[in-house]
């Protein structure tokens, strides 16, 4: 029983809905460990960058406030001021760190770092994550990501590559290569590309030929400088593309759409040195 998913409808959510509809379990791929580590460090970098700005403002406020009200704090006794400052620092860190993860995972299912690498948090037996699951995952992040070893062990030992927080919350992190490729599209949107790819099924292009076409499409669509192309040359390029996309003639495509799609195809296959993202057959 194999289904080809409609390329126009391509999200993890639709897989989940299909699974509920069919009463079957969905086959996801567990996220590779290296991608999880890098996506976590991207998240941490974003949080640090936000905190950096936040702390500068904070420092100015605190110390100007301290200069004015220092006597007030002094009469409360001892190191009261120090505790207040440290407490506020810790509180703001926890607020931003936990808030970032909980908000994005509950709202979207992925954080910014996870999105870049095609990762997503999915509940084991539910169509979507609940708030308590997100909070549980986040609380256990202190053990998993600070002490490192228990998290790594649990990822290595469990079948679905779950860390301790995942085990407790009943979630796991899944990976989709197609989702990862979506960030690198320049000429057309991923939806348009998959629609065209399904309909046209272009042939494999040799690397040097596809590089020469990429140079053409770069001058045509992006840099818009340098040489201009004569109508004869446009016709030559169109014949070149039609050689690899024979079905385009039957569809009656206009030249602009054809060039844009074929440029994206060359970019996805040759420039990124990968096979074109295939629709993932599930169930």
């Amino acid at each position, binding site marked *: *029983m194999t*289904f*080809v*998913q*409609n*390329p126009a409808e391509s999200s993890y959510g639709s897989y989940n*809905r*299909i699974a509920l*509809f*069919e009463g079957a379990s969905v086959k996801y791929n567990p996220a590779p460990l290296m991608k999880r580590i*890098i996506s976590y*460090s*991207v998240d*941490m*970098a*974003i949080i*640090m*960058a936000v905190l*950096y700005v936040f702390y500068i403002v904070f420092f100015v406020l605190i110390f100007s406030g301290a200069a004015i009200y220092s006597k007030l704090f002094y009469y409360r006794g001892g190191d009261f001021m120090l505790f207040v400052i440290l407490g506020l620092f810790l509180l703001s860190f926890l607020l931003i760190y936990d808030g970032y993860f909980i908000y994005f995972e509950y709202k979207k299912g992925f954080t*910014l*770092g996870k999105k*870049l690498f095609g990762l997503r948090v999915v509940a084991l037996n539910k169509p979507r994550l609940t708030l308590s699951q997100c909070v549980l995952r986040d609380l256990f992040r202190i053990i998993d990501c600070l002490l490192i070893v228990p998290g790594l062990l649990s990822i290595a030992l469990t079948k679905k590559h779950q860390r301790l927080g995942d085990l407790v919350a009943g979630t796991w992190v899944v990976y989709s290569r197609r989702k990862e490729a979506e*960030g*690198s*599209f*320049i*000429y*057309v*949107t991923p939806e*348009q590309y998959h*629609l*065209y790819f*399904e*309909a046209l099924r272009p042939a494999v292009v040799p690397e040097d030929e596809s*590089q020469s076409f*990429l*140079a053409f*499409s*770069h*001058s045509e*669509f*992006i*840099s818009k400088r340098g040489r201009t192309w004569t109508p004869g040359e446009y016709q030559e390029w169109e014949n070149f593309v039609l050689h690899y996309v024979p*079905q385009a003639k*039957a*569809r009656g*495509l*206009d030249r*602009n*759409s054809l060039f*844009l*799609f074929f440029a994206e195809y060359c970019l996805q296959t040759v*420039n*990124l*040195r990968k096979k074109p993202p295939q629709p993932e057959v599930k169930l």
Partner: protein
Amino acid sequence: MTSPIIPGPLTAGEFQLPKLEMAGAVVPGGFWYRFLALVIDSFILGFLNAPFTIFYYAALFGYGYLARRGGEFAGSVLPIFATILLYGASVVIRFFYFAWFYKNKGATPGKMIFRMRVINFENGQNIGYGKTFLREFVGKFCSALILGIGFLMVGFRQDKRGLHDLIANTQVIRRV
């Protein structure tokens, strides 16, 4: 058993393909976007450097403890060696981080967040290891050498290319 919500493979002539337009505009990457991307990349590089940094400070503290007790450790080259190791490791990590991401993804994670890419100015393809070395090490060194004017050029030029971009013949583009 066929599902009512999953159509089968598409066949030719089933429906008219929609006309394609360029997906948004592609513009040169601006100064502040690139600045923020570099900040985020630096933080990530800090994380990747963490094992060496921990080793570095462990070695220094150990040296300090032993040197205070006197003996043969007092004049050792350990701190110099540890410092060279730390800087060497950070340079190597930095190079492979940038080169791998530029070659395989077109952008580092910091740039990816802002939907930017580094491309070869001649033909719009991803840059490889050689151009990465020219851009990230030779080019940025030159940019920094003239009081950072090479970086400020990004903000003032029409095509948003800094000195390091001109040296390596690259351009940063951003999808809007």
